[in-house]
């Protein structure tokens, strides 16, 4: 089935999108900000939707929207009367409704509208696939170089701050890389699979691993396996690849939870 060019491109794009999302998603789970992934995926959709209406580049607009949101979420002071999670929920609701409302107004762009919401990895162009690979490489390099700093601020931001680490800067940097990965992926694989890769793959990995480095590697492997097998199953069964991959990721979490119980 991978003899066809569009399938090979789809596989490359899916893997390139899944690796950074499943790796940096580990931080989302550990920091208990999983909905930040949903916010950034939807913010990217809003950006692309705005671009669709005004005739701009959806990719650039999606990246700008996601990075701006990531920057804003990272710079927000801790609220006193409501939890940080409720601010994230507000941002998600606002972004999701804005995306739908803007797309509803874009009457001339029905096919693109569906792509934005659900993605269509089977229609990915060589240029877009290359773009995803480049983004994955950049995010990979950033995390290899600065991973210990990200872990430091994730584990104990206050002690890191006392030791002279600019914790706010690193949290913003972490959010920016999540935003970049989500923005690059959302136009090709859709908001649902983007969110699932950010959360379900790391979740499954955290359930079965006992060392942080292994957690990152296993999470990436789960992400790759889910999108690869999902693509193949979708081809064989004539189903949309995104939801199939999400279903596989959700099943992996259940299996990992059972394995985790068995380990204990």
């Amino acid at each position, binding site marked *: 089935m991978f003899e066809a060019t569009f399938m090979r491109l789809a596989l490359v794009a899916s893997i390139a999108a899944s690796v950074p999302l499943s790796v940096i998603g580990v931080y989302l*789970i*550990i*920091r*208990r900000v999983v909905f930040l992934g949903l916010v950034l995926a939807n913010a990217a959709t809003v950006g692309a939707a705005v671009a669709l209406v005004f005739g701009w580049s959806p990719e650039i607009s999606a990246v700008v929207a996601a990075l701006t949101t990531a920057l804003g979420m990272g710079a927000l002071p801790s609220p*006193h009367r409501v939890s940080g999670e409720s601010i994230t929920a507000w941002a998600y609701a606002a972004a999701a409704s804005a995306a739908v409302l803007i797309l509803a107004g874009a009457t001339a762009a029905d096919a693109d509208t569906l792509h934005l919401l659900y993605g269509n990895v089977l229609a990915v162009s060589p240029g877009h696939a290359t773009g995803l690979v480049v983004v994955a490489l950049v995010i990979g390099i950033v995390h290899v*170089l*600065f991973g*210990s*700093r990200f*872990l*430091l601020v*994730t*584990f*104990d931001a*206050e*002690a*890191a*701050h*006392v*030791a*002279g*680490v600019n914790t706010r800067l690193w949290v913003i940097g972490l959010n920016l890389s999540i935003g970049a990965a989500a923005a690059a992926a959302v136009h090709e694989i859709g908001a649902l699979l983007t969110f699932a890769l950010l959360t379900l793959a790391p979740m499954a990995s*955290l359930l079965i*691993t*006992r*060392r*942080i480095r292994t*957690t990152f590697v296993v999470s990436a492997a789960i992400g790759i396996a889910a999108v690869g097998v999902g693509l193949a199953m979708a081809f064989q069964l004539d189903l949309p690849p995104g939801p199939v991959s999400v279903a596989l990721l959700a099943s992996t979490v259940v299996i990992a939870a059972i394995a985790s119980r068995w380990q204990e």
Partner: protein
Amino acid sequence: MSAAIPQAGPEPRSVVRAEHLTLGYRHRVVVQELSFEIHQRAILGIVGPNGCGKTTLLRTILGLVKPLRGTIDRDPRLIISYVPQRDRLDTMLPITAYEVALMGCTARAGVLRGAKATDRDAARRALIRVGVESLGPQLFRNLSGGQQQRVLLARALAAEPDVLVLDEPTAGMDIASEAAILAFLEDLNRTRGVTILIVTHLLSLVLNFATSIMLMGADEILHGPVDEILREDRLTALYRTPVHLGRVGGQRILVVGSRDTRHV
């Protein structure tokens, strides 16, 4: 109020100097017009009832929150290490006790510099010093409360600090572990000249340990030598319960409550 905390040793350097501090959050003032100076080699116990502003003062000393008014100066040449309350930390991260201790070194290293052999040695030595070297390979999240507290102390010591700031350091420990930690800190102060700031709601913890005390109440904050600050009438008024002070075998003891509800 304003006073210097006298310390032993020839011409001790000032570690922290605060002038006319007003502390709080937004419209809620917790501490007003507080001035003090902490000298090198001091063991300062910051004590007081719940809600008196101990943690706010500690966070201000550490530079984690800015004072609403006034100034606080820390000697920039000194290395300050912080041991937070262990239950404030996120234990979802699958990292070992050794990796936690290592963070004490890597947090102060350059951004692109990984852990060197000297850092790894320092982390191992720190675990040995607090008596938990055998726990190094174990996951931090699987340790008991007292063991986690010791590992956090090891992380602070790995940086070879000049000033050690501890927030409720013996929470979750049995009395033997508590005594061992206090003896260790006392030795650290005596042999290495490490200044120790310890915040606790347990007055009994610092009675025989601190060289000076900052007693925080709703209306006034007193600081000075232990015998000068701790008086029965003052403590009885502050805690609104009968407090009796005495000595057994040269050690100060504290008896709280009336005849019917008395505990030491």
